[in-house]
């Protein structure tokens, strides 16, 4: 298998270290390497292979296997080449009789405690131990096999995705080190001493342990000890393709390792720049939904939603859909139809859907659910800095000295990035967490927040203002930076505003619920750091005052000079894989691709020319407007690609009524979803494994999605859209998504330089990519802001009205956990259910005590919207007065309570996000429901968003 041949230079790159390059000789070959490079890595560069087992270039050198010993002229002994740094003029020998003997003898010891079942071993053909036995020329084991050994050690099969077979373990600690260094969970350890040393996930099994099933240990294992069950079942893969994960906004690069058209396993791609060879349980293992039996593989139509579905051919389905659209437009007007794009589909597919709407439907009625989480960022950052996107690449965090995490729970929602962040924190960076909940980052192994600003939900702006107040009034602002780079009249106005004592920590502290001294200390820490970076999530954007908070964040970053270089910046953590891309691609009713307003005649002219049709100059309908219009009778047909609006919209009855009022609803999805219940045409979607295209992640990185298997239903989503366009009399001519990207590049200034060839060549590209930045832009706003001068915006804190009442004394917040994704349409169709079989209600011990609720009890939760029953988990992670549930299992009815909040209209105010998953509620113990069983669940929150078709909604809660 080709993974064998993946370059492994043995020890990590140390080129960032200071010091002149070092020249030395290895086996007579002169080689020059960066200071601090190991002999092993230098040897690799010199084309000299040194045997190794415990070394791999993703982990710090360890020096335990003793196969990589070398001789250095003028030195005693046999130093390990992995742990010995190069020094100028060294003369190193990697092959001598003595070394050969030591290596063979050491290998002999290994094999004296290893099963000899190579031919039936799942690692056969891809086993480093096997390879090294061959390399060192082991011919016999003089100790025999009768001695003490571990061959009878029982297998641990508890993890649904991989097996731990300690009988094959060589105790190289690569798994332990991967868990520590790469993932940062510290779930694994070596237990016992000497010969009794064994790898253990704590005292129990893998499933019972702290293990988060990220797969780093499996990937690191040089033998079959930690091995994917899929490889046990299917054998070693024989070919592979690089593609991009379709779960969260980190956008990890994976090698899909295949046998024919079957995916054997997904292995994180070492050169992937978003993930740097790391993965989480979802991307690594939870791809089984793609071939789940629930997948719809045949198009279906029906005349009315009361009728059963009828399977038809693609041609019939498309022809039917097209004739209905044309019929409806003929009857109700051109504007009576519209489309919804998906933040789960590719850029090219999203682009095509909005093009279909604009060119074939002839209106601008296109929108996307990504607007919910994206809009405040887009608006806030565009207004202040000039571009609707995060400012950094993920690598940037490795240069940060202070990291602020606000309204985000990266260890669950963006786990791979969280691992990078934790690595930096372990290196000594300081952490400030701004979150109502004690998220894991606040206090986890070897990382601890310097400050946890445990704010009252709804006081984000107050926190940012208080921090900025301290920076300004204590003279910590980078005045030179601001003077050089920002609009001064605005700054002066803003400064006068922020100086006002009403923005002081002493005044705002009680509102926020955090001592003024904490706010002051946190502000000082942020402002005085060499590099300070802010990462925020949906706890900021899906929130009343979401845009205001984003602008307040940008203000603070400009104020302290923390923009425009590695290690700093303002970084939204995107909920879904292609939130950024779907917005870039013109999914909003008022914007053409590249965030250009439809009212701009030049832009309309450009697109009109290219598309051969005039572009409507009127912004189209947003999703809520579409529903309103449907109920008015003026909006009658909707094409929904990869979104489940019926499930995700807060006002379920409203949406249901609106959908029912339509005459043709076309749903394109992997599975029958809630919206499909109101649909007349169902077009089977294609998973990310079945199509070519690109995703754009949270760092503006455009990465390739590569087709590794044919679409189960015959057509990729872009092909279906193209067929629909053709049937509507607007033929599109693309043989491959690369041609769609070529069109996007031709029409969008920030994408001018993007081609599939260049992506192949560079691996991925961060937009803007054009003549000014031919290889893309890792860090934005370097010499000046995109908008020219940065703009400070006054961010008045507006208190939300009383949020709880006697009837509903608690605030309910929702979120997601590591192993599940959004409403779980995908992850519930995988073995990830092992970790999270049901939704639970988390509440603080005080709230539990007051209601006589014990851990594990079944409790009723009621809000004005409805009621449901959940199992209680009593935890100090919550603050009193706030309860929390996940929403991965629709049957648990968490949505029922959270779906509608009749006070929403009063809460939203100036936010641009009209949906927020929260409610006031009350809960009580259910009679006779006392249970001592403690559910296995992880209890973490994050962004809420859809499957291939679910809307985003809020974590933070009003």
């Amino acid at each position: 298998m080709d993974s064998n041949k993946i370059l492994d230079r043995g020890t990590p790159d140390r080129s960032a270290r200071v010091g002149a390059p070092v020249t030395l000789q290895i086996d007579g070959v002169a080689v020059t390497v960066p200071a601090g490079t190991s002999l092993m890595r230098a040897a690799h560069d010199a084309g000299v292979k040194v045997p190794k087992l415990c070394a791999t270039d993703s982990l710090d050198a360890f020096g335990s296997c003793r196969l990589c010993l070398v001789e250095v002229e003028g030195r005693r002994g046999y130093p390990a080449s992995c742990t010995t740094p190069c020094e100028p003029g060294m003369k190193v020998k990697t092959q001598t009789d003595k070394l050969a003997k030591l290596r063979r003898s050491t290998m002999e010891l290994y094999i004296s405690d290893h099963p000899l079942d190579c031919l039936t071993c799942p690692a056969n053909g891809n086993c480093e131990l096997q390879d090294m036995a061959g390399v060192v020329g082991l011919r016999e084991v003089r100790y025999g096999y009768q001695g003490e050994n571990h061959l009878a050690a029982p297998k641990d099969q508890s993890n649904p995705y991989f097996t731990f077979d300690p009988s094959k373990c060589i105790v190289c600690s690569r798994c332990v080190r991967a868990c520590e260094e790469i993932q940062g969970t510290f779930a694994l350890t070596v237990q016992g001493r000497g010969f009794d040393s064994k790898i253990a996930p704590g005292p129990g099994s893998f499933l019972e342990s702290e293990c988060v099933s990220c797969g780093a240990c499996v990937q690191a294992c040089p033998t079959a000890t930690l091995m994917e069950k899929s490889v046990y079942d299917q054998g070693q893969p024989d070919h592979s393709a690089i593609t991009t994960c379709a779960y969260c906004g980190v956008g990890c690069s994976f090698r899909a390792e295949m046998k024919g058209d079957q995916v054997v396993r997904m292995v994180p791609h070492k050169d992937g720049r978003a993930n740097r060879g790391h993965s989480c349980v979802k991307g690594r293992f939870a791809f089984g939904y793609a071939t789940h039996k629930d997948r719809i593989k045949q198009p279906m139509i029906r005349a009315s939603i009361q009728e059963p579905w009828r399977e038809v051919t693609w041609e019939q389905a498309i022809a039917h859909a097209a004739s209905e659209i044309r019929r409806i437009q003929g009857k109700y007007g051109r504007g009576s139809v519209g489309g919804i794009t998906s933040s789960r589909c590719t850029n090219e597919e999203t682009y095509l859907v909005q093009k279909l709407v604009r060119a074939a439907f002839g209106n601008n009625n296109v929108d996307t659910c990504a607007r919910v989480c994206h809009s405040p960022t887009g608006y806030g950052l565009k207004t202040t800095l000039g571009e609707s996107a995060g400012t950094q690449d993920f690598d940037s965090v490795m240069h940060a000295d202070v990291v602020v995490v606000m309204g985000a729970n990266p260890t669950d929602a963006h786990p791979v990035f969280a691992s990078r962040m934790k690595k930096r924190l372990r290196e000594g960076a300081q952490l400030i967490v701004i979150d109502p909940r004690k998220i894991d980052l606040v206090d986890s192994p070897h990382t601890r927040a310097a400050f946890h600003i445990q704010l009252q939900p709804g006081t984000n702006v107050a926190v940012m203002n208080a921090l900025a107040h301290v920076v300004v009034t204590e003279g910590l602002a980078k005045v030179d930076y601001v003077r050089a780079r920002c609009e001064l009249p605005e700054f002066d106005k803003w400064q006068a505003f922020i100086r006002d004592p009403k923005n002081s920590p002493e005044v705002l502290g009680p509102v926020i619920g955090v001592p003024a001294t904490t706010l002051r200390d946190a502000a000082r820490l942020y402002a005085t750091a060499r590099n300070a970076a802010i990462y925020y999530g949906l706890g900021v954007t899906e929130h009343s005052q979401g845009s205001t908070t984003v602008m307040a964040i940008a203000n603070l970053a400009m104020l302290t000079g923390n923009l425009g270089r590695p290690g700093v910046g303002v970084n939204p953590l995107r909920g879904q894989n292609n939130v950024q891309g779907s917005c870039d691609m013109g999914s909003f009713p008022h914007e053409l691709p590249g965030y250009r307003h439809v009212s701009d005649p030049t832009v309309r002219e450009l697109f009109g020319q290219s598309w051969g049709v005039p572009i409507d100059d009127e912004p189209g309908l947003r999703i809520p407007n579409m529903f309103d219009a449907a109920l008015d009778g003026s909006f009658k047909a909707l094409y929904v690609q990869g979104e489940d609006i019926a499930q995700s919209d807060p006002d379920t009855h409203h949406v249901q009524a609106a959908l029912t009022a339509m005459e043709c609803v076309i749903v394109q999805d992997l599975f029958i979803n809630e919206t499909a219940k109101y649909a007349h045409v169902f077009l089977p979607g294609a998973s990310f494994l079945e199509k070519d295209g690109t995703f754009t992640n949270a760092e503006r990185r455009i990465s390739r999605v590569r087709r590794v298997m044919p679409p189960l239903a015959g057509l990729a989503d872009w092909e279906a859209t193209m067929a629909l366009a053709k049937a509507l009399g607007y033929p599109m001519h693309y043989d491959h998504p690369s041609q769609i990207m070529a069109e996007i590049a031709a029409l969008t200034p920030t994408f001018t330089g993007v081609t599939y060839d260049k992506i192949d060549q560079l691996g991925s590209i961060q937009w803007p990519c054009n003549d000014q930045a031919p290889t893309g832009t890792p860090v934005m706003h370097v010499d000046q802001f995109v908008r020219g001068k940065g703009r400070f915006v006054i961010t008045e804190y507006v208190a939300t009205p009383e949020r709880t009442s006697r009837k509903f004394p608690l605030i309910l917040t929702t979120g997601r956990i590591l192993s599940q994704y959004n409403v779980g349409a995908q992850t519930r169709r995988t073995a990830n259910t092992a970790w999270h079989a049901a939704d639970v209600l988390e509440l603080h011990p005080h709230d539990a005590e007051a209601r006589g609720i014990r851990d594990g009890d079944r409790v009723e939760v009621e809000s004005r919207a409805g009621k449901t029953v959940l199992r209680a988990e009593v935890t100090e992670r919550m603050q009193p007065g706030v309860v929390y549930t996940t929403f991965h299992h629709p049957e648990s009815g968490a949505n029922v309570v959270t779906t509608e909040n009749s006070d929403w209209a009063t809460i939203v105010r100036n936010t641009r996000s009209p949906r927020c998953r929260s409610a006031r509620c009350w809960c009580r113990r259910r009679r006779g429901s006392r249970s001592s069983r403690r559910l296995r669940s992880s209890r973490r929150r994050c962004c809420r968003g859809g499957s291939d078709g679910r809307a985003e909604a809020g974590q933070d809660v009003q």
Partner: protein
Amino acid sequence: MTAVKVFVPIDAAARSVGADEVAAAVQAEAKRLGVAIELIRTGSRGMFWLEPLVEVATAAGRVAYGPVTAADVPGLFAAGFLQGGKHPLLHGKTEELAFLKRQQRVTFARVGVVDPRSLRDYEAHGGLRGLRAALAMAPAQIVDEVMTSGLRGRGGAAFPAGIKWKTVAQQPPGQKYVVCNADEGDSGTYSDRMVIEGDPFLLIEGMLIAGLAVGADQGWIYLRSEYPDAEVALMAAIDMARREGLLGKSVLGSGRAFDLHLRRGAGAYICGEETAMLESLEGKRGMVRPKPPLPAIAGLFGKPSLIHNVMSLAAVPTIVEKGGAFHAGLGVGRSKGTLPFQLAGNVKHGGLVEVPFGMTLRELLYDFGGGTASGRPIKAVQVGGPLGAYLPPAKFDTPLDYEAFAQAGGMLGHGGIVVFDDTVDMKAMARYAMEFCAVESCGKCTPCRIGSTRGVEVIDQIAGPGPQVALLRDLCDTMTHASLCAMGGLTPMPVLSALDHFPEDFARGARARG
């Protein structure tokens, strides 16, 4: 009438043979008789066959009675022991005892003499002179004195201390540490324990001076968990040192800060290896780190750290007080100063012998040790702990000197000497060496982790010369050259020395051992 001073050791070795009971009996008997005494608990003089050794301060000096049991006490009073009265247990003036008189106690000058819980007593007996001198010196001067002294690491590796000090001192200013390795795990060794229990301020003073010299304001002591008495003594001494301004923000009012952290180990031999100790100090599993980086550059918590054994640090105050040249004037060759040897095992007069390097092993074994306790001939001695070589009588004229011992195929290590008579089975001892390694290996590197277990198995199969002996030698070669640290690297030393010097013991049939 002033109270007569009576000294009863509080040292763990003395307590293990009843010193506490003796002390109580002395108090009770004095009370019963209405005699005023001042009972002082001291460290041990290091003559274990005489413990519990009771001393009485007389006009002529301190006189020794021992070994004393509680039952002996009324008789001692009756014999007028408070005035040095004659009694079968009387040995005369303590200082005149041959075992002590022939020694040159520098590090142990106060052990058994002073009250370890009294900083005043420490000072009255010459303590703090080194520190006071150091406070008046530039850091580089202190380093120079240590360099001049020729002091070598007493933990076993005998690395020149001055070079270490210089390396740490040369690191850029910032957080640095002095780390004391008090994980004295070698079988038959106890000198660290005796100093900590009997003269703890000496260690504190040594660490303070080291901190001043290298620019460290914090010291860490890693004490093995098997030394509960030492822990009590050390904690009391540290508390007192803080109260008296010896430790803290301004050491003796100098404006220079130094404080100590005391950490207890968890019973792993390997944590005596300096890098495994650092891991353990950091709260991690005690596993050996590869070097480089040297701990002097990146040690505890990644900061430059001066790591020394208790004996090395305890040698420092004298070096600074009397000058490096004084220390360099003792000893032979490149082995300077004194080494507190520890006689143990089957020996008539077990105990602590501090002498300058250069005396022969034979003198130590017979002139001090008096031969075996069993009265049978000595067959072998193991010098330098469980990883040291077994030496046959033919090697007993080797001088106690690092280089001479290395040449003789052995090592001095931490100065522990365990004596065996002619009933010992050297194959069993070789097997024990492998077994010890199998039990105590940190499990990191393969030669040590698997090799030690295979070593036990191979030795069990040996019945005279043959392929198993060849395999054992091969294994020893692999462990020696391929192991990550000295644990695996030195385990072959006792094995091969046993095989080389006592081949006849390996000719017997394979025998099972539990």
